[in-house]
């Protein structure tokens, strides 16, 4: 009898904790759950814009790999692509969008909570 009481109270506290973590995990954004996409967002959060080669340099990835991750972030509406001409040469810059900023901040908060819990 006693044992069962202890175990149920233990169970309930455990399930509470699990619920709590599940709650936090909801805020973990799948779009950022990859090293390269996380990196792209981190760089764009602190720089107004960045060029393709700059991102490539900092992240140390191949052209194709980077392009596909940029495309997926763009599809989500988290980053913007700015195409322009500098001295008649095409130049592509990337910047984070308003939605991207908000989503990334939420993601960061969730990561921090997960570590603290």
């Amino acid at each position: 009898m006693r044992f069962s009481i202890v175990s149920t109270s233990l169970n309930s506290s455990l399930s509470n904790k699990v619920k709590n973590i599940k709650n936090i995990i909801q805020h973990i954004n799948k779009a950022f759950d990859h090293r390269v996409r996380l990196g792209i967002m981190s760089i764009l959060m602190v720089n107004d814009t960045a060029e393709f080669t700059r991102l490539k340099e900092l992240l140390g990835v191949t052209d194709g790999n980077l392009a596909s991750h940029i495309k997926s972030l763009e599809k989500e509406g988290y980053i913007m692509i700015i195409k322009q001409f500098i001295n008649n040469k095409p130049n592509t810059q990337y910047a984070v969008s308003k939605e991207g900023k908000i989503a990334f901040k939420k993601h960061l908060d969730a990561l921090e909570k997960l570590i603290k819990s």
Partner: protein
Amino acid sequence: MTDNKYLNDLSEIKDLMNRSSRFLSLSGMSGILAGVYALIGADIAYLLLKNKTVYIRMQSSGNAELVLKLMLIAITVALLAIITAYILTRKKAIKNKENMWDQTTKSMLVHFMIPLVTGGIFGLILLNHEHYGIMAPITLIFYGLALVNVSKLTLDTVKYLGISEIIVGLFSAIYVGYGLFFWAFGFGILHIVYGGIMYFKEKSTANTQSRQE
């Protein structure tokens, strides 16, 4: 396991934010050496001025040659300091695998040069008007402002060096006539002190890194 993954994520975010927006390979030793050059330069200037009664007030004309000599010393000290900083910082950047010439360093140069060139031109205009007395405050204050302006793109120590230079510059504006003393303190002693702080910070981080490996 997952906890570790998220911890890694966070540290990687922090690392990339820093690396993409700050240039962290500034060499502390180059600051120390710049201070030493400045002290030697100030010493030579002192010897040049020692036998002149115009030490306190150089307002009288006919000092063109002396002013030219003093400017030559200042330019030599600045050039030596820049060359040393370039060589040592390049060495450190290569060691840290940081890019010496990228968006961050380019914008660093712009942020640094705008107050500095403004102060330089302003100083030349004042020289032309023979306002020798406030040359030391002007150079110290504008140099300090340039450092504070560039500090958000590099090590935090640079900001404190900049603020100290501004304070020394303001004090030297109060005590006109002791320009050389304040100059030696601002460009000499402060560089050695803050360069030393940076140097020891470098060493301690290098030690912890090697311990982790």
